[in-house]
């Protein structure tokens, strides 16, 4: 019988082919093009110091992006990450100034941020509110708590012990520890998200919550956990910032949420859930960072910078979308 249904396509295994089909290939190409252009445009661009400065500028935010990407995949969103990062610094800094060991203080701060995430998760999964509005409220509340805890003034934490500051300022060989921490977080979560059964449930839940629930997945628990994880990672990032800067600033991270979400979306995360990769999101961060750095390095007039930045963002996303669509 010659039945109409077409034969299943040959599984394509060649590495090159695989690479070309990857979601991230377009972005990588765009970033490479920028690198090439910039290395001609500025002799300082491809220097070790510049590269290090560039990575340092996004490394800690990159940790927040990891949490946001996972949350986006599960179908959520979190506008409070900037405030929560600041709150983490403020709590840990404040406790430290009260005489508590900085490691203990940091653990408490991260725990508090995790609790905030759990609180949001509760409102989303039990009360049934939308992530957007819950995290908006928490964004305001957490910022208020920062002000309350500091009286609006940055906490100077110059007295933090050197072994604590090492987290944020130390280097291992030539490489700053911050970058190593960032890479570890990225690699671990990228691996887990791609390969482990636990994190696959995040995709299922975000792709079709009902279908996932029908398969016995406790989707509310999944959403609760991704919401909590995102805040926990923001709290963790706050501690690293604190160690890096030796201070806790109540106004830290204003507007960070849009940057972080943008990075994840540029990297292919869907705002309606179900798809996204850590690798892509980090490429998104890199892209935004390369653009900012390049504009600064080329001494582009500040009055032009935003216009160019926005246009490159739009162009990059369009090109990526086109390439992705073309590959099918």
């Amino acid at each position: 019988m010659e039945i109409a249904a077409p034969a299943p396509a040959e599984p394509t295994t060649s590495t090159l082919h695989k690479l070309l089909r990857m979601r991230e290939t377009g972005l990588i190409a765009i970033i490479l093009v920028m690198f090439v252009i910039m290395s001609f445009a500025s002799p300082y661009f491809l220097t070790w110091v510049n590269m290090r400065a560039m990575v340092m500028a996004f490394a800690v935010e990159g940790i927040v992006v990891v949490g946001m990407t996972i949350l986006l995949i599960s179908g959520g969103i979190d506008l409070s990450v900037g405030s929560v990062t600041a709150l983490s610094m403020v709590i840990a800094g404040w406790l430290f100034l009260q005489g508590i060991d900085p490691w203990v203080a940091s653990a408490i701060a991260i725990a508090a941020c995790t609790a905030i995430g759990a609180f949001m998760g509760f409102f989303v999964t039990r009360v049934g509110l939308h992530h957007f509005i819950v995290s908006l409220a928490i964004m305001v509340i957490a910022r208020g708590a920062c002000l309350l805890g500091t009286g609006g003034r940055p906490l100077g934490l110059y007295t933090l012990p050197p072994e604590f500051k090492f987290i944020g300022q130390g280097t291992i060989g030539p490489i700053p520890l911050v970058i190593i921490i960032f890479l570890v977080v990225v690699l671990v979560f990228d691996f887990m998200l791609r390969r482990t059964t636990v994190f696959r449930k995040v995709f299922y839940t975000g792709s079709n919550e009902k279908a996932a629930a029908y398969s016995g997945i406790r989707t509310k628990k999944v959403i609760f956990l991704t919401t909590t994880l995102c805040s926990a990672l923001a709290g963790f990032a706050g501690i690293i910032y604190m160690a890096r800067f030796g201070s806790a600033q109540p106004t830290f991270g204003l507007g960070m949420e849009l940057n972080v979400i943008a990075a994840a979306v540029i990297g292919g995360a869907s705002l309606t859930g179900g798809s996204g990769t850590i690798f892509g999101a980090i490429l998104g961060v890199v892209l935004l960072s390369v653009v900012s750095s390049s504009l600064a390095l080329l001494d582009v007039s500040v009055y032009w910078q935003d216009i160019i930045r926005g246009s490159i963002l739009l162009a990059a996303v369009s090109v990526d979308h086109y390439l992705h669509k073309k590959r099918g």
Partner: protein
Amino acid sequence: MPDDVILRISNVSKSFGAIRALRGVDFELRRGEIHALAGENGAGKSTLMNVIDGILKPDSGEIVWDGKPVRISSPTKAQKLGIGFVHQEIALCPDVSVAENIYMSTTNISRSFLMDYKGLEAKARNVFRQLSDIDPSVLVRDLSISNQQLVEIAKALTLDCKVLILDEPTAALTEKEAQVLFGIMRRLADSGIAIIYISHRMVEIFDNCDRVTVFRDGQYITTCNVDEIEPADVVNAMVGRVIENLYPDKQALADKSEDIILDVQGLTDNKRFSDVSFQLKKGEILGIAGLIGSGRSEIVKGICRLDGDVSGDVSLNGEPLDLKHYQDSIAAGMVYLSEDRKGDGIFLDMPISNNVSALKLEQVASPLGLINRELEDGQAERLGNKLNLKCGQLSDSVSSLSGGNQQKVAIAKMLSVNPKLIFLDEPTRGVDVGAKAEIHRILRDLARSGVGIVVISSELPELIGVSDRVLVVREGRIGGVVEGDMITEENIMHLASGLDAQELMA
């Protein structure tokens, strides 16, 4: 033999606001039986299944599992007990692969830390070996509705369950796939699994099931052994009256006309179909048959310019059409009822009346473009009554309706515009016997009054029952045409699969 009973429902009730979907129903399921559940649209079949699966919490009543009373609070719990469920509405994750969808529950309870994608694909390929040949590595979003339905079924078959619930699994399947499914079901039953089978196709119930339970209006009516009764008895119990003619009379010889309503010549999109030519004559109902994925839907969508680039000539009532968008098609009086009700047929979150009016708002609006709610509600009420729509208020959202009633809303939407030509893709998908007969009668009346009717259906008896002529599509081309007494299952199947084509064409 009471210990044979794996699941017993007693006196279960469930209301949605004012709607009493279940009123103290009883139900009993034995090991190793295939137990059909029949009832009109909105009788409460899916609701009961959702109660059994822990998706809905019953207001009152008792569920006894294997002799012990249980509370099933979630699908997870149900899964632990050993209940597998293929839902009436397709519920798959569009962003992940077919293989992962099939093994979602397995992944969920799996103790292994890492995913074994290769293993999943191999296992999935194995499952499909008997069912169809879908590539397990593709994303579900790239599958057609019927293939998605097959994935749903495959998903249930992989479950290690004691009770398997199939809620209208064949609604979008053709005979061939359905037969495969029945074979599998029987094997499962023989190995001791109890199967609840919900369908509006009497033939399937009588050919494949052991017992049948009938619900009407949220109440339990009766349970019988299938070999002790006739289909008419079941229908009678379902609707509370006798339905004499499932299908209306066909076109009388005297009414035959040579006026051509639709003339399609050389329609091609170079991907899914090519060189399609056919005509629809005044007064006749034209059926389109074919295997899953043969391109029936694509051809019809192509005519209406709903999809992609299409070349070829289309004329309606003798006038050549120059269509650019589907809007032009609607303006010309040619409308399409989609096979994917939930995906592109209705607006789930919107009121029933707003759904019915969506195709041509101008009809319920003043010349200035102001919507007249009375007109809008009136239209919905009129068409709803005509189609025997069972609903609460017209302002309720369509999502609160049973599957079959949602389909009626979609049909009402098509009828609302008084079209010159309707393409109906699986029009009675999920619709109960009574309403089906009603829809068929309406179609016949429309055809008689000069409206062109083209019906695509995977349910061969329906095609045979309503069509005056059947076009058989094979691999994107017209495989042949049968007419009059030649419209039989064998002939259609032969043409669809390409056997003896020459012979039949003669």
